[in-house]
C-alpha cells in the first residue's frame, strides 16, 4: 500500500493511500497531492540511500511520498 503523508503540526498526517490496482484510490491521491502543491507544499520521494527527489506528479509506484514545507536561510 502506497501512502501520501504531510509533515505538519501533528507530526505527520496520512493524506491518501492507494495500491497500483486501485485506480479510484490513486486518482483521489493525485487530487490530494495537487491540492497540497497548491497550498505551497513540496512533494518528496525519499529513495532510502541518502538521495531524494522532488516530485511534481504523484508517482503511482512510490511506497511513500512526503509533503514538506519550503526551507529558508535562518
Amino acid at each position, binding site marked *: 500500500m502506497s501512502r501520501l503523508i504531510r509533515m505538519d*503540526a*501533528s*507530526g505527520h498526517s496520512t493524506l491518501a493511500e492507494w495500491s497500483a490496482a486501485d485506480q479510484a484510490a490513486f486518482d483521489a491521491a493525485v487530487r490530494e497531492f495537487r491540492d497540497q502543491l497548491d497550498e505551497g507544499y513540496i512533494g518528496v520521494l525519499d529513495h532510502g540511500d541518502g538521495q*531524494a527527489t*522532488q516530485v511534481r506528479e504523484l508517482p503511482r509506484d512510490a511506497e511513500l511520498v512526503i509533503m514538506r514545507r*519550503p526551507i529558508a536561510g535562518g
Partner: protein
Amino acid sequence: MAAPAGSAPALPEIAQVPWRPVADQRYLDRNARLWRLWTIAYSAPFVLIGIGLLAVTWLTFPVALAAFAQAWIIPELYAFRGASVLRRKGARHDRTEPVAQGLLGDLLGHAERDLQRETGLALQRSALGIWLMGEAGAVLMPPGGARVHCFCVRATDPELPPSDRIAHLLLALRTDEQGFATVANHAFCGAPWRVRRRLPAPMKPALDEARRRARLL
C-alpha cells in the same frame, strides 16, 4: 536510480536566492580561506597591540591583558554563533514530537537513528562531506574533518515538532545538496574544536562521530 516522471533536479527554494552563487566545493573552499584570513585580521591586531604595550613598559600589563582577551573573545563569539546553528530552538511540542520522531527514524539508517535519539542531531553522508542536521541549522564537515562549515537554515512552518524540522532539512539536503547549501546562510567556518567547545554536551558525540567519518572520506 532513475528519476520518476515529473521530478525536478534542483531545490525549488533556490528561486528565493537567485543572487547567490551555487555552494559547490570551490565555493566552500573559498569561504574557508576567507574565514581563516578574517580570523587572523581581527585577532592579530589585538595581539600586536598587547605585545607592543608590554614592550613599552610592564605597567601597561592590564591594558595588554585586555587586548589579548579581545583577541581571544572575538573568535570565540564567532564560534559560538557557529555552534548555535545546532542548538535546540523553538517549542518542543511534546505531544506530537513522538509521531515526528517516528518518521525521522524511518528516514535514517540504524546507526544514524540511534545517534539522533542520543544527541538530537541527524547525520548524513553526502557528496560534499558529512552533514549534521539540527532543528534550525546544519553543519558540514568536508573530507578530512579539519574544518567545519555552519549553516543557518530552517523549515518555514513554526508549528512543526522538532523532529519534523530536522526531517525537512534532511529531505531538502538529499534532494539537492548544493542547492541546500546555497539556500542556507553560511554562519561560520573554522576548526571543529572551536565549535565543539560551544556545543551543548549531549550534542558533542554527534560532532565527534561526524569528524570520525569525515576523516575516512
